[in-house]
């Protein structure tokens, strides 16, 4: 990882020598969470045995310095360096302050092709919550707050065709799948936009894996003058899985590789946007809903076996085995099917005040998470937000076996 950061700096810093555009963000906030020291995922407080104690409260300051510069007619560099300081952290064995590069890339923009290389944000798909086609950022946690997000190292070469189509070739470093340069994937995407329709198809080649391919399409329709409807769907097909799952033989759980010959994941949903021009009380409402199916995901039974496996390691005081098994569990991948719904209200009573509430239901075990959120825009460069995550479910369910029952987050962001 250090080599990647050095490479990014080597690319970006010379670019910055030219005309510089400098700006900064300061983001400060706090998180509060309940902590269950004997939940399904964290039985018998194993993390505390590993020297990690949960304080239930943290507070932090992030300061971003953002540098941007153009070189001649076609070049551009961008660097976002973040300093993070935690006066108080949730867990005890993490650094309290550190620097990291959130984004650092160079662009080449010509009339015939566009290139971006370095660490940068990448995102695919129109899903409001679930984007199984987002193969360029698969490991993004939908519950992580925006301030924690970082770009991913990679490169994107795009050839636009007129104003309606493009062909892209990409590669991206995945923290779990890329150990050396030959592991880098070669991803090709074709994008097309025709009137209210747009969509893309892609194929992804990677050493040691059979190609995966898929697509995304969306359609926007003006239902009335102040109501618009968006419909979308996406699908990805793959023939390999990097995941393991917990099986059980004679009552003894164990991990093994996924063995299916093919996997399909899809998501489909829609959103209605209402713009209110006839009342000063509200600006707009967005209502969204989404269905997600993934045959590569664990079933409810797999998840229960996994908890049994974790429990067995705990009973045997097998701390290294427990630590190694923890990454096998991935949020929102513990049921074959999920449903997402959300509502966002913009400019309620005050044009600068917005609130939202989102929820995700695990269909296999009927556990769910609710994510309310409010924000106030003090001015165009200053915003305050307060959010919460509330988890509900039985002890053996996905959202009932987490260490938290709720989490709160408040933050103040100032840009200058």
């Amino acid at each position: 990882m250090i080599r990647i950061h050095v490479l990014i700096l080597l690319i970006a810093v010379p670019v910055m020598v030219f005309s510089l555009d400098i700006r900064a963000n300061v983001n400060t906030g706090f998180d509060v969470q309940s902590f269950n020291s004997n939940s399904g995922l964290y039985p018998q407080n194993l993390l505390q045995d590993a020297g990690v104690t949960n304080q239930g409260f943290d507070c932090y300051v992030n300061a971003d310095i953002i540098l941007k510069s153009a070189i001649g007619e076609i070049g551009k560099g961008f660097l976002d360096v973040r300093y993070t300081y935690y006066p108080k952290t949730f867990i005890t064995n993490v650094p309290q302050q550190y620097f990291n590069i959130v984004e650092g890339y160079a662009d080449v923009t010509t009339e015939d092709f566009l290139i971006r290389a370095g660490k940068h944000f990448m995102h695919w798909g129109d899903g409001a919550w679930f984007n199984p086609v987002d193969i360029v950022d698969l490991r993004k946690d939908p519950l992580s707050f925006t301030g924690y997000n970082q770009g991913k190292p990679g490169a994107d070469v795009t050839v636009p065709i007129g104003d309606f189509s493009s062909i892209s070739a990409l590669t991206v470093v995945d923290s779990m799948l890329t150990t050396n340069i030959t592991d880098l994937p070669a991803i090709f995407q074709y994008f097309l936009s025709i009137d209210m329709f747009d969509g893309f198809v892609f194929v992804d080649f990677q050493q040691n894996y059979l190609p995966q391919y898929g697509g995304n399409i969306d359609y926007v329709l003006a239902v009335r003058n102040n109501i618009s409807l968006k419909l979308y769907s996406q699908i990805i097909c793959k023939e390999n899985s990097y995941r393991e799952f917990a099986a059980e033989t004679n009552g003894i759980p164990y991990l093994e590789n996924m063995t299916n010959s093919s996997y399909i994941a899809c998501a489909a949903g829609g959103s209605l946007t209402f713009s209110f021009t006839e009342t000063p009380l509200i600006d707009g409402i967005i209502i969204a809903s989404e269905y997600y199916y993934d045959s590569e995901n664990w079933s409810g039974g797999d998840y229960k076996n996994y908890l049994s496996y974790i429990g067995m390691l705990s009973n045997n005081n097998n701390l290294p085995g427990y630590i190694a098994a923890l990454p096998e569990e991935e949020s929102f991948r513990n049921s074959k099917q999920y449903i997402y719904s959300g509502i966002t209200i913009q400019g309620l009573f005050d044009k600068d005040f917005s609130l939202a509430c989102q929820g995700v239901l695990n269909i296999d075990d009927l556990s769910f998470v609710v994510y309310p959120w409010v924000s106030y825009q003090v001015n165009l460069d200053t915003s305050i937000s307060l959010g919460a995550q509330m988890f509900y479910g039985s002890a053996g369910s996905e959202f009932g076996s987490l260490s938290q029952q709720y989490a709160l987050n408040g933050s103040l962001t100032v840009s200058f």
Partner: protein
Amino acid sequence: MKIWIKGFTGLALVTTVFCSAVYAEEPSGILQKSDKKFIPEIFTYNMTLRTKSADGKVDVVDYNGKKKHENNIMVTLNPVSARGQVNLKNRNVLWSYFPTSDTSVKQSYQAIILGTSVSYGDILAIELSRDYDVQSTAENSSLSNDAAGTNMYYLLALTPKKGVDGYAKIFIWINQANFLPVRREYYALSGLLVKSCEIKSISFNDKGVLSGADELFYEPLKKKETLVTFSNIIVLNDIRDTTFNPKAMKFFSGE
């Protein structure tokens, strides 16, 4: 033979005069002529939105933009928190690109731009003749704020073209003498006036090409006004179509 020539010439004249008269009174022709007079086909520009709320708070948003025919792209320069965000009109579709999440979303025509009283449609779809049909027209209309009463105006009633998002109805006053727009009123389906826009000033360079304009949007319900200022207008012969490709927004976000 001479009678034939005279007859043919006379018929041609009558036809020409008739066609000219029809064209002059063709409502969509008036709107197209006004758009053509006011807004160049292909140009780059800077735009500033200065919004004053009822409580006196002033917010300023700056863009630089490129427009070619029905396509228009604007990159946000200020506020700092939104710098690099891109708004695009690609044919009939409005897009926004948010660089901190690498997300492109299609915007509703009437969705309000944060902190202003203008919608994405107001500033991206600036040639009304591309998105609206003329339902009715009246000549020799007057305007209440034209104190001298010396100017006469075309008053056109516009409704969105089929399949195009937009306001339920727009009234536009166009100066009959120079075909420049003077005022617009935007109405909801219920008939309520939701927004008005006064074109405070329009300036042209020596070649008669637009060099700047000030438009004052006012929302009576929210008692909020936004002054939209076009400046640094450079008329070009062409801009590559690829500039307006939705996939290119990501690469223009840093401009």
